[in-house]
């Protein structure tokens, strides 16, 4: 196939790149934490045209057993490109490239995860590249560390990662697709912001030492930018948990969906209440009747309080003025708030 890009100028004289970015400009990055339900932690990241989703499981038992380390846990990342993530379909399953990337990402993550806290176990990190457009390993690692944090894995820091390189004699930040394919050099990089440790570094192409240090500095700066986006994603996910139990679950979702979800939940709750009622009634009609028959023929008001709590509570809400019940029973308001609190708040 003839390459439409070979003759293209990747950067113009004013330092403007193919996609209109400046030399030291990142592509737009959005990160959302907690997007999957079954995974212990998860993250969805869009970085330019890249789409990456990460699920974290663990700490859990290691299979195969011989990989267990009696002194510390292990971190196993699996970087996988979906067949439809690239322009020509990629055969599914691991190849040499993704195996290498998996290894590098695992090692970078193992550096920040406090593995001595959970010996003999593994934390499995599944990185699925849904759409690829250069810099997927960095996108994967960036997302993976957020997903680990979302899973509540103890870590010393997040790991922002970015790849810079050289195109047409110019050093540029965050290579795009064409720049990656036809540029002169590529330097994927990841750093632990709190300590400054470099945990991922690769380079291919041709660079002078000056250019290389320039790239490193560029990467370092950009890492701090990405770090802020990572933190913001986690804050967004968890800040709402300080509110009362109920609202928190909802507000994680985007506003449009949150509304729908809330409505759906309300409907569901009504249903659940009905359900419970039904079951209770079926059970109780039997039991209560038996009880009533055997004991004295009491008036139906006696079993009422626990028979139909909701109705009871509602009744009390209507005449909210008289909180103290004449018969000296515990204030129903208290019971109610406590009840619903646990019922609705125990989401996760």
């Amino acid at each position, binding site marked *: 196939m003839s390459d439409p890009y070979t003759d293209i100028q990747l950067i113009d004289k004013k330092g403007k790149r193919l996609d209109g970015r400046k030399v030291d400009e990142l592509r737009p990055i959005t990160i959302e934490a907690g997007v*999957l*339900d*079954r*995974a*212990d932690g998860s993250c969805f990241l869009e970085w330019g*045209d890249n*789409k990456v*989703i*990460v*699920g974290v*499981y663990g700490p*859990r*038992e290691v*299979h195969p057993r011989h990989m267990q380390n009696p002194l510390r846990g292990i971190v196993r990342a*699996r970087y*996988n490109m*979906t*067949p*439809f*993530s*690239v*322009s*020509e*379909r990629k055969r*599914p399953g*691991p190849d040499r490239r993704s195996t290498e990337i998996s290894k590098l990402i695992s090692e970078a993550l193992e550096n920040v995860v406090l593995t001595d806290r959970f010996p003999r176990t593994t934390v*499995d990190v*599944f990185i*699925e590249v*849904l*759409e*690829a*457009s250069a810099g997927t390993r960095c996108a994967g690692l960036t997302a993976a560390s957020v997903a680990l944090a979302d899973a509540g894995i103890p870590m010393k820091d997040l790991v922002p990662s970015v790849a810079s390189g050289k195109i047409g004699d110019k050093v540029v930040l965050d290579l795009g697709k064409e720049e990656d394919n036809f540029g002169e050099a590529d330097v994927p990089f990841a750093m632990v912001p709190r300590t400054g440790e470099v945990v991922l570094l690769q380079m291919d192409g041709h660079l002078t030492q000056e250019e290389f240090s320039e790239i490193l500095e560029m990467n370092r700066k950009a890492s701090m930018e990405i770090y802020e986006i990572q933190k913001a994603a986690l804050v967004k996910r968890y800040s709402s948990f300080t509110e009362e139990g109920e609202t928190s679950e909802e507000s994680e979702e985007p506003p449009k969906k949150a509304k729908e979800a809330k409505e*759906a939940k309300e409907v*569901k709750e009504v*249903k*659940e209440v*009905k*359900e419970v009622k*039904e*079951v209770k009634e*079926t059970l109780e009609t039997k039991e209560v009747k038996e009880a009533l028959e055997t004991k004295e023929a009491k008036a139906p008001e006696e079993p009422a309080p626990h028979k139909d709590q909701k109705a009871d509570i509602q009744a009390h809400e209507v005449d909210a003025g008289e909180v103290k019940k004449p018969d000296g029973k515990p204030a129903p308001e208290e019971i109610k708030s406590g009840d619903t609190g646990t019922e609705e708040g125990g989401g996760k």
Partner: protein
Amino acid sequence: MPVNIVSYIKKDYIRSMAEKGIRLDGRGMDEMRELTVEKDYLGSAEGSARIKLGKTDVVVGVKIDPGTPFSDRPNLGVLISTAELTAISSPLHESGPPRPPAIELARVTDRSIRESQTIDLAPLCIEEGEKVWMIFIDIHPLDYHGNLFDACQYGAMAALSTAKVPWSKLDEKRKDEPLGTHTAPVSLTAVKIGSKVMIDPSLDEDEVADARITVSTDENGDIRAMQKGLNGSFTIDEVKYVVKLSEELGSKVRPKLMD
């Protein structure tokens, strides 16, 4: 290999509630979870969709590349679909070569798309015996919350409905053409728990189900594919009931996937 453990208490609870006609999530026996479809989800694929059936989450990409035809069908395009039980979608799924449950899922999904002649393969011939369009439907579950059979099939149909044949890759003058679908089979999966049949099983229901049946019906209500799984059984009447439901609900789901 991790084994799925369901406690007896949970099993009994689901069963006894089912006998009373109650499902744990409050749905009716013939009620589906909410289906949301996001089409043209990916730029890198010729067709794509991300669908959510309740919390079950699946992304599907359709790739259309030139390739060589099968020697016994030199003038027909090739349609291949794959579905995996991806490790990201559940703590019980592992990466590596697919095991029987994954293969069953892949084949059942494939059957209701390929064998039902959803796609007309004749116009996909570029040069007889030499070059044809190969259509790959790759189904990628992200979150498994029961009933992957339907979620995968819906995702595949939605992705196919957006797919374009990239003729411009071969001939710059020619425009990309929509792939188009011949028919639009839509599947419906039901499980049997105890003596009760319920559709669109949730995760809990999937785990304790005795038997499972997937029926695909087309616009005319004709049956296009079917599969019964697990070691339980259905009566003839139950099968007919599921077929009827498949037609009924299929007609509601179809516009969401195809329009």
